[in-house]
């Protein structure tokens, strides 16, 4: 028999951390700080809107790009939050979560051999999706001393004449890093000069704790026409299981992304789209409430980890902290494995998000304060035990 598997699929590296996840799944008594989704329920009025749409029998396909009403709300959102004007007819697409948006956008924009710059540590799908799109991923290892922000120098070093796209993901999973206006201005200038496009994954955009609103690179001079913004409902409105997100960008790009989406997906789930309308229309307060709670846990976690002697830069976004575990003289995976074995606590090794995550672990604070407290007690016990060794 011939090999049923394609070369590209076979050569794609599976996430090394999958095995560790399976081990955790088989330890029911272990507690976990390993999730990448909110602990809050989707606000009831949003769920209710989804239920109502089902009751009304709204169970058909929507238009490929998504319900016009929802696209209009997405456009309103960008107008309201970022003073950006997207035409809901041609510049907004509703997708199956941010994940589909990443995949489709890369496919729509990459030719074989094009280089996509991907700063790491980052979400696990960028590199595989770039490869599947035929592009060549070029990773930049971001540094803790820069608070895991992308610096202009790092970007310039990575650019070649084949560079087509910069993949930006701030607020960042797993580091919690943000890029502020001054940081983005410098990056934007380079992108304009070097004629590079940006795919900006801002799925955590609503969760920033700098005291200033989140800034998107699409706001920078000359960037609107070369930026595709990816966003969604999962993290900000606690809607991960609804699988719904959106893309906004110039019509010339969006029309092609929409074409691919039409062939691959048809349309995002109709029920979720109705829920999404309600979320965007009257969910601002829910986001603020959740954000306040995340921020309190974030402060608590950073301060506790530092007191234990784990160096931890202050993350100002998402719901993760990314402390350094270097002083224990273990690799990230070793640390995670032993913490699980000895203290029955699961965290994600930094290396799951790129080689430069070595020496770090990702801790999620999408947990209640009492769960965090219990877990921190275990980390402290672990550290005391191993620093002495």
């Amino acid at each position, binding site marked *: 028999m011939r090999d049923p598997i394609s070369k590209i699929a076979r050569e794609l590296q599976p996430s090394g951390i999958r095995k560790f996840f399976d081990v*955790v*799944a088989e330890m029911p008594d272990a507690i976990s700080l390993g*999730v990448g*989704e909110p602990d809050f329920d989707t606000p009831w009025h949003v769920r209710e809107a989804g239920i109502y749409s089902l009751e009304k029998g709204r169970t058909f396909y929507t238009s490929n790009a998504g319900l016009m009403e929802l696209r209009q709300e997405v456009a309103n959102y960008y107008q309201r939050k970022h003073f950006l004007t997207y035409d809901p007819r041609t510049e907004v697409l509703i997708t199956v979560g941010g994940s589909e948006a990443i995949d489709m956008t890369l496919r729509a924009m990459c030719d074989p051999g094009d280089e996509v710059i991907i700063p790491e540590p980052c979400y696990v799908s960028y590199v595989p999706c770039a490869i599947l799109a035929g592009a060549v991923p070029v990773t930049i290892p971001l540094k803790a001393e820069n608070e895991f922000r992308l610096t202009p120098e790092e970007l310039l070093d990575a650019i070649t004449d084949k560079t087509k796209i910069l993949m930006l993901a701030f607020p960042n*999973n797993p580091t919690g890093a943000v890029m502020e206006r001054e940081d983005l201005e410098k990056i934007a200038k380079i992108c304009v000069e070097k004629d590079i496009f940006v795919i900006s994954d801002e799925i955590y955009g609503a969760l920033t704790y700098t005291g200033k609103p989140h800034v998107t690179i699409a706001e920078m001079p000359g960037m609107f026409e070369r930026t595709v913004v990816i966003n969604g409902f999962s993290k900000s409105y606690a809607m991960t299981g609804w699988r719904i997100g959106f893309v906004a960008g110039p019509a010339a790009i969006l029309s092609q992304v929409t074409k691919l989406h039409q062939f691959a997906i048809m349309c995002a789930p109709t029920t979720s789209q109705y829920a999404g309308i309600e979320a965007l229309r009257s969910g601002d307060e829910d986001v603020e409430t959740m954000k306040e709670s995340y921020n309190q846990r974030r402060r608590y976690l950073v301060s506790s980890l530092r007191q234990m002697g784990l160096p931890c830069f202050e993350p100002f976004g998402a719901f993760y902290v990314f402390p350094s575990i270097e002083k224990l003289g273990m690799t990230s995976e070793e640390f995670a494995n032993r913490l699980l074995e000895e203290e029955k606590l*699961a965290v994600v090794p930094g290396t799951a998000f790129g080689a430069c995550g070595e020496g770090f672990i990702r801790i999620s604070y999408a947990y209640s*304060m009492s769960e965090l407290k219990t877990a921190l007690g275990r980390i402290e016990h672990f550290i005391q035990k191993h620093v002495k060794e």
Partner: protein
Amino acid sequence: MKEELLRLIQNNSRIELKDLATMLGTEEATVANMLQDLEQEGTICGYYTLINWDNTDEEKVDALIEVNVNTQRDMGFDAIAERIYKFDEVKFCYLISGRYDFLILLEGKTMRQVANFVSSKLSPVEFVSGTATHFIMKRYKDYGAVLGKPKKDERERMSF
């Protein structure tokens, strides 16, 4: 920060001072002072525990009572309310817009005790012109908390 502190302890008044300070990004002494001021000015009126008595052997009967009153010169709503809420059995007392004037929550041990209170204590209060008593049969939600078993975390335990 004052409002954030209040929102925080409204849902959980048992968080330690040290943790409150960390969660709000400030010093312990600052929080302690703030709490003291809030107590003294009457913004924080107490620290209570939300109990589902149905889980215990203690017999309790609660009733919501609508109260109509006739106000007069020198005897406005506030003065009448005081005559009503001074009874220890009265746990809540609100002035209400609409068809009646006050809504009170009465806590008793038995239905008879509640009935006695209405007939022998509440109705005879001067200016009270009528009452309607509604016994509470089941509590589903109190102070924003759904009464029942705590919810389980049903998320996958690891995800990117």
